């Protein structure tokens, strides 16, 4: 069974701009999600510094006992990361799809202020559709 637990989007300064929980027992309140997002931002940067070779772009996959975390960083520094069940496939592709939705429905929205929390209906709608489609494809329901 492969399922997505939650999705986070972090702006280039490390602030959380979007958090969506898809039914995990570990649902967090706003403060905790903000703290975790900033923590991730710093650790992503430190992992780059600790790299033993050149050209490191930060953590792409974190594997833990009960979840996997896939992270995608755009060229502008915006980070998208998704918490999913261990062994879930095609998360990188999903993150790229979410990035495309972000550019289409958030960045092209003239009323959206850069680096601010995302409050765009169309983005939420299309995101749910993409996640649902992904879920159907993976689970067949």
């Amino acid at each position, binding site marked *: 069974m492969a399922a997505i637990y939650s999705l986070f989007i972090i702006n280039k300064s490390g602030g959380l701009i979007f958090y969506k929980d898809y039914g995990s027992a*570990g649902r967090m309140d706003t403060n905790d999600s903000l703290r975790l997002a900033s923590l991730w931002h710093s650790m992503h940067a430190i992992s780059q510094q*600790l790299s033993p*070779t050149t050209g490191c772009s930060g953590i792409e996959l974190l594997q833990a006992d*009960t979840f996997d975390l896939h992270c995608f960083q755009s060229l502008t520094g915006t980070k998208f990361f998704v918490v999913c069940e261990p062994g879930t496939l095609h998360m990188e592709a999903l993150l790229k799809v979410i990035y495309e939705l972000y550019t289409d429905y958030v960045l092209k929205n003239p009323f959206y202020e850069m680096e601010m929390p995302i409050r765009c209906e169309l983005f939420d709608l299309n995101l749910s559709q993409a996640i649902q489609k992904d879920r159907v494809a993976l689970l067949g329901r």
Partner: protein
Amino acid sequence: MQFFSGSSVVDVSLSPTAPPGTATGHAGNNANVLYIFNRNGVCLLYREWHRLLRTLDASQDQKLMFGLLFSLRSFTAKMDPVSADKGNLGVPLLPGQGCSFYSFRTNTYKLSFMESPSGIKLILITHPKTGDHRESLKHIYNLYVEYVVKNPLYVTGTPIKYASAHVCNVYFLYLLSELFTTNLDQYVKTLI
């Protein structure tokens, strides 16, 4: 997790081999580094077989590594989607408390992590396409137990190398680091 296999001191025939397809036999552009920390953050061993870039000096690098692991453990314990009640961020976690990560991967390296119940943290940095190294880390931990902890002259909590002391002690401590590092090197070469 079985830490004490009960095998004799030099029985390394059961060492887990590298996952197929990842042992290339040469390091190439990839790094291979091992860190061992104790629960207080003292770096007991830092060993590099291949490392291209050193941005910080050794002690800063080790402190940064320890700090990163500490924060990552807090992060994974809090991020755990399965348990409902988690502690607060920033509270030091006991070994084994809360969900812990076992590896992370970037585009240039993969870091595998293991923490023993006594707080000994093992970190192995390898090339990004490596498979799961949890078994390998357990084996390295067993090597540590056999050759370092069971050596009566080793002072726990100090870095694993020989220190200036009595002539007789120096010889035995030299043997300690030699045995441990030789076996360690032999084993890690099979993984690279």
